[in-house]
């Protein structure tokens, strides 16, 4: 344990499933009730998410579907234990999971931003290179195409000359 006393309050995230026996409106009421449980235990909710009705990957208490909802809150350890207990005993929530979320310091956020910028710059460069390559490739292929057409023309002219020669020979034969 570090000597400096850290505050007991942590950042948590709870994801819970409301069973399908409720209608959507009723489910929303249940969700507000759950949020009430958190606030009752001195939790401060700072983020909410509602995913809506989703199919569960497996049946939970004979429920194939459920309404997913998410809430992030700040609370101390004891409060989290109480919230966990209440949600576990509740019949309106078939499953829930409380997870401690690490709060990023400003330094970390700045670092992440810098890295993101670097990545973006690199991606742009790669795209540029790709574009240049593609353009080059197109030019090359165009040149090749033009060359091909030239050769074809030459062949055609050769054929014409041959025809003329042949005709000449034939006419000469006729003369004989």
């Amino acid at each position, binding site marked *: 344990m570090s000597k400096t006393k850290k505050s007991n309050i942590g950042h948590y995230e709870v994801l819970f499933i409301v069973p399908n026996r409720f209608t959507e409106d009723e489910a929303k009421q249940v969700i507000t009730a759950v949020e009430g449980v958190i606030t009752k235990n001195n939790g401060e909710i700072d983020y909410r998410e509602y995913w809506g009705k989703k199919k569960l*990957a497996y049946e939970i208490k004979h429920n194939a579907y459920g309404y997913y909802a998410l809430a992030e809150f700040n609370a101390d350890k004891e409060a989290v234990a109480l919230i966990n207990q209440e949600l576990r005993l509740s019949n309106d929530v078939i*499953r829930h999971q409380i997870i401690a979320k690490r709060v990023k310091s400003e330094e970390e956020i700045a670092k992440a931003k810098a890295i993101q910028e670097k990545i973006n710059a690199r991606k742009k460069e790669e795209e540029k290179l790709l574009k240049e390559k593609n353009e080059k490739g197109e030019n090359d292929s165009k040149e090749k195409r033009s060359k091909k057409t030239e050769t074809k023309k030459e062949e055609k002219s050769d054929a014409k000359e041959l025809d003329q020669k042949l005709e000449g020979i034939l006419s000469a034969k006729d003369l004989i």
Partner: protein
Amino acid sequence: MKNQKTKECHFCVNNLEVDYKDVRTLRKFINFYMKILPGKRTGVCAWHQRKLATAVKRARVMALLSATHK
């Protein structure tokens, strides 16, 4: 010597965090039998592979992923 290709960690390269709610990405790191793929196979760095394993397990608890194939 099947998987000797040197891969870069998906999360390090793209500056991503492992999230158990993001099932689409998690799905890439489990096989047909819903088993977590080894780090050797996924190419994810050891630090992120540990986060990945817990994320998959959390997703299983919340019925976002099934634990078996059917």
